[in-house]
């Protein structure tokens, strides 16, 4: 894992001291709210519906057990003993007191964490495939490049006042687990004809008010050109991105307006100019140092498919189901990737208490070389588990309620905090997620339904990624009541698609019944081996529309 060097640490310490002084000046009245707001947001401190909220970056979703313990301690000491993992692989603490905020960020800085660039019109936390470095289908660990991008974009003076926020996602694998086509820039590692690894560069994706799928503007970019090329992308956006209209200021609008071909030409021209001036060279020594941080761990020899696993699978179908659903193939023989579901029944998606965070840290130390990942689907991942340890890991996950075998299934719901916490929301998200989880709590039924993703957003800003849910729910306010607009057929994976709106929004009271009728229709009309998304693409919205609006 990457560890901060003296430059990173000195920068953070300076920032903590500056923020401490800024908070003191705000509390004494020397700074007005207008003056202070920008400063607190630069450190990830928002003022939400009920209180201040601190958004803490988890770069490329990788956490050490020590960092997880510190998050638990901070949540317990200065918040209400829980945190919310987000779709950007961050964690949010919902009840931070302004007076305590300097101590909180000082405590986080001690473990190389902060909230810098989790707000504002800058390059935000770079997200990555949560299976990075261990996925069986991976070309290279993309976190080396995510870390290079983090260092490049941190406090970059040219890119600190962009037209709007800017989100980058990276994957090194064939399957897209990082939703790269709905980011401002998505990077996918691939090989050229000669077998060299590089990046496909996707630009102009995004959700929100205007959902758009990103366009490939470069099919293959050599790795060494990454920073120069991205700098060219940023310059074109910085120059041409709209600053007159908040709703048209993201790069997706620029790419949509001028077209991906023109965008590619302009970026290429800028890139050539940058190259002519000597380029943005990467110090090979620095790259080597970063690469060393992400070198694959030395795995002790581990038996492949030890017989006791098969025995337990036969003896206990619950274990077999969990293993099938919540673990993934590991590149190292005899190992597995374990997903811990943060979607236990009756809990807000993505929330974990301090006790649970500590338990996960202990599990990571015992069975996963001290490493944890955060998935953008708001789950946690233990990336280095020996197959032989799976029974014990399963029991430990069960003990904290994180073993629900629902990864990728209907109750593995992505949901933003919604109107229960968020100042921007127009409707609640969490109660709908909880009611759906309650309705579909029967595991046999859940598994019969198969892969099924429901994403819920409490407003048009789409933090819950509703457009790319197989079923998306968007909360809207209709004359003071919560209604939910339903979209169908979305996907955030290789086959990224924006869901299509079915019809008029459905009331809060009706929405769970409507989804259940939709699911029943799918089960009735599906062909053998057909997932919901397959069926949806085959038959279109019509049969589902009929069931959604059928009288109860």
């Amino acid at each position, binding site marked *: 894992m990457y560890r901060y060097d003296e430059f990173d640490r000195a920068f953070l310490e300076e920032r903590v001291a500056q923020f401490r002084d800024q908070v003191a000046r705000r509390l004494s009245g020397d700074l007005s709210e207008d003056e202070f707001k920008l400063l607190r947001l630069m450190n990830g401190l928002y003022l939400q519906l009920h209180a201040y909220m601190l958004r803490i970056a988890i770069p490329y979703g990788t956490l050490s057990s020590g960092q997880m313990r510190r998050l638990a301690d901070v949540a317990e000491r200065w918040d*209400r003993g*829980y945190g919310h993992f987000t779709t950007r692989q961050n964690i949010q603490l919902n009840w931070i007191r*302004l*007076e305590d905020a300097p101590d909180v960020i000082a405590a986080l800085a001690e473990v190389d964490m902060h909230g810098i660039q989790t707000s504002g019109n800058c390059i935000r936390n770079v997200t990555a495939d949560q299976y990075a470095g261990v996925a069986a289908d991976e070309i290279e660990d993309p976190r080396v490049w995510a870390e290079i991008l983090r260092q490049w974009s941190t406090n970059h003076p040219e890119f600190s006042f962009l037209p709007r926020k800017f989100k980058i996602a990276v994957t090194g694998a064939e399957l897209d687990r990082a939703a790269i086509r709905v980011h401002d820039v998505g990077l996918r590692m691939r090989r050229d004809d000669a077998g060299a690894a590089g990046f496909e560069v996707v630009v102009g994706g995004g959700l929100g008010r205007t959902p758009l799928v990103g366009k490939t503007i470069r099919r293959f970019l050599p790795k060494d050109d990454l920073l120069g090329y991205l700098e060219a992308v940023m310059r074109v956006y910085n120059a041409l991105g709209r600053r007159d209209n908040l709703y048209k200021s993201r790069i997706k609008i620029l790419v949509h307006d001028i077209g991906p071909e023109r965008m590619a030409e302009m970026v290429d021209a800028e890139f050539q100019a940058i190259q002519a001036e000597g380029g943005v060279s990467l110090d090979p020594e620095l790259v080597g140092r970063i690469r060393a941080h992400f070198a694959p761990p030395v795995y002790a020899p581990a038996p492949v498919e030890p017989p006791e696993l098969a025995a337990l699978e036969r003896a206990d179908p619950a274990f077999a189901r969990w293993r099938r659903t919540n673990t993934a193939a590991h590149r190292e023989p005899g190992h597995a990737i374990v997903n811990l579901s943060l979607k236990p029944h009756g809990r807000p998606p993505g929330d974990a208490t301090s*006790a649970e965070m500590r338990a996960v840290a202990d599990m990571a130390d015992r069975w996963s070389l001290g490493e944890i990942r955060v998935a953008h689907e708001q789950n946690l991942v233990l990336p280095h588990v020996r197959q032989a340890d799976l029974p014990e890991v399963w029991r430990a996950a069960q003990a904290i309620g994180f073993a629900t075998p629902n990864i990728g299934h209907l109750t593995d719901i992505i949901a933003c905090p919604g*109107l229960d916490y968020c100042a921007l929301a127009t409707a609640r998200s969490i109660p709908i997620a*909880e009611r759906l989880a309650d309705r579909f709590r029967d595991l046999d039924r859940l598994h019969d339904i198969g892969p099924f993703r429901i994403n819920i957003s409490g407003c048009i800003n789409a933090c819950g990624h509703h457009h790319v849910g197989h079923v998306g729910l968007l909360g809207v306010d209709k004359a003071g*009541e919560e209604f939910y607009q339903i979209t169908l057929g979305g996907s955030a994976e290789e086959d990224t698609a924006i869901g299509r709106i079915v019809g008029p929004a459905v009331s809060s009271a009706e929405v769970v019944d409507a989804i259940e009728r939709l699911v029943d229709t799918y089960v009735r009309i599906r062909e053998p081996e057909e997932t919901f998304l397959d069926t949806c693409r085959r038959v279109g919205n019509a049969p589902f529309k009929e069931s959604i609006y059928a009288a109860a």
Partner: protein
Amino acid sequence: MTLQVITANRLSDGVVVFRTAGGRWSARVEDAGVLDAGAAEAALAAGQADAVRPVVVGVYLVDVVPGRSGPVPVEFRERIRAQGPSVGVRGAFEVAAPALPGRAIQDEV
């Protein structure tokens, strides 16, 4: 007649507060001083002065109706803001009896 109360967030900790008839700030909406149209402007100005001092941040008026134990915000968003999240986190904090329409699982029983 439109009735209103004044709300803000307390600067030091962000807690949602309401201005009382005596010009103090309370975390309970029930304690809020209820204002008719004639009184709202002057009280808002006084509340905003507290944002300059600075004690609170983001001072504004909220429409209310009289309830059994005090004023109740009219808008759904403001009711949630006054009462806190409608969902708890098992193991961290629980939400008291639901006072919001359309709340959670109880509706389906």
